[in-house]
């Protein structure tokens, strides 16, 4: 058979199938499935006997052909209401082959076009140095780039400043807990009460950090036993009572505050405190 000489030039299973169909002078619309399947399988066998690695795709199409072949043997009439429709198991295969053939044709057209175009030559770019004035520079300023760079710079700067700010706050922290405690005592004094609710210690629109630092200060005062607190229910109001003895033992408090401040600072500072 003439296809023997074409053994290794098929681009895929469809390529082979189309070749076999055309070689057998069959109409694509009326493929003799039985005959073509036999030829196809024989071809695969020949490939294998020649130790040519047959791609799995070829096998898959072989299986599909065999399936169609067996379906061709079954009655193909299907009753759809009054009408009797004849179904052809080859329909999808034909569609696929036709589609493949279109692109095969397109590939041939491209090949011709490529051949034609190989007869057309271009010339390389001239040495353009003679046309460029060495001294002239064209500055390309892109506004987007300009704004982007600047925004990046601003963001970087802002981050840096924020970082520096929080760093300096760490430095001031000792003073602030202390001043907050004085402030709390002041409130008790002004209100002339022994007991106050925690919320009474806060300004009407306190920031979150102010609430937290007030709370920490209260905890600190409790630790120093200059204050007691009571909370009846979870998340309920905290009632604070200021003890008598404070004020007289001012120096004591100061010392305690210094100890507290150690908590939030670096360890080496803490060690420094111990040494002193």
């Amino acid at each position, binding site marked *: 058979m003439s296809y023997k000489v074409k053994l290794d*030039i098929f*681009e*895929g*299973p*469809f*390529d082979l199938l189309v070749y076999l169909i055309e070689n057998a002078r069959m109409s694509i619309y009326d493929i003799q499935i039985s005959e073509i399947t036999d030829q196809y399988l024989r071809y695969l066998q020949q490939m294998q006997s020649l130790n040519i690695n047959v*791609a799995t*795709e070829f096998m*898959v*199409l072989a299986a*599909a052909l065999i*399936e*169609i072949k067996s*379906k061709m043997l079954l009655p193909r009439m*299907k009753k759809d209401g009054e009408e009797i429709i004849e*179904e052809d*198991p080859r*329909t*999808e*295969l034909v*569609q*696929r082959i*036709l*589609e*493949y053939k*279109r*692109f*095969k*044709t*397109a*590939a*041939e*057209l*491209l*090949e011709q*076009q*490529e*051949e*034609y*175009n*190989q*007869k*057309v*030559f*271009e*010339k*390389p*770019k*001239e040495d*353009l140095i003679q*046309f460029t004035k060495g001294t002239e520079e064209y500055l390309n300023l892109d506004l987007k780039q300009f704004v982007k760079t600047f925004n990046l710079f601003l963001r970087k700067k802002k981050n840096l400043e924020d970082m520096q700010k929080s760093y300096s706050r760490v430095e001031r922290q000792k003073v602030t807990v202390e001043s907050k405690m004085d402030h709390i005592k002041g409130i008790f004094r002004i209100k002339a009460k022994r007991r106050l609710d925690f919320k009474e210690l806060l300004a009407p629109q306190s920031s979150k950090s102010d609430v937290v630092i007030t709370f920490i200060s209260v905890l600190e005062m409790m630790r120093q036993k200059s204050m007691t607190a009571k909370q009846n229910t979870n998340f309920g109001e905290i009632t604070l009572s200021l003890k008598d003895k404070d004020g007289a033992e001012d120096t004591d408090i100061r010392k305690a505050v210094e100890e507290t401040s150690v908590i939030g600072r670096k360890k080496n500072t803490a060690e420094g405190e111990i040494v002193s």
Partner: protein
Amino acid sequence: MSSKKKIKSAYESMLFVWGEPLDVKVAAEIFNINWKDAYDYFKELQMEYEQEGRGIQIREIDKTFQFCTNHENSEYIERLCTPVKVKKLSQSALEVLAIIAYKQPVTRGEIDSIRGIKSERVIEGLVKKELVAEVGRSTGIGRPVLYGTTPVFLKNFGFKDLKDLPEIDDIEGIIHDDSESVAPDPQQISIDFIKS
């Protein structure tokens, strides 16, 4: 010399020194004229060279223009020197290129399915040759890469643009869109073997 003639003459000079395809937009900017006028001048030049059967011709590639030789003279050029030729594409490369050219943007899966065989390596080769390129991603499962042809493809094959591709009988009628495909009739045999 009229302004128009002057500009056309300048465009000839530019095409000559530039060698490579010259962008109409760039050419228009040099004379501060609008794009369409510059394009028309190039087209007029192109026609002049063609009508006079000149040994130099002007070809259009995707809104750029380039001087090249008249293909009829290739024989004599080759007698004079051996110009470097681009290696011809293999059959499989041409097949894949044809599918991408006519069906773009297209995924590898669609190409594989039409050819009935995996085309990954062939596509890679075409990408390397800059004839095709990734042009985006499909919205489908796995968002597969979509391929399309490049200006290099147009140039190497002498197409002005994609509309210039030779017509293939009813090619659109045959290719059914995936979105249109109906649920398969259980009686019908599927040979979608590539999907695995």
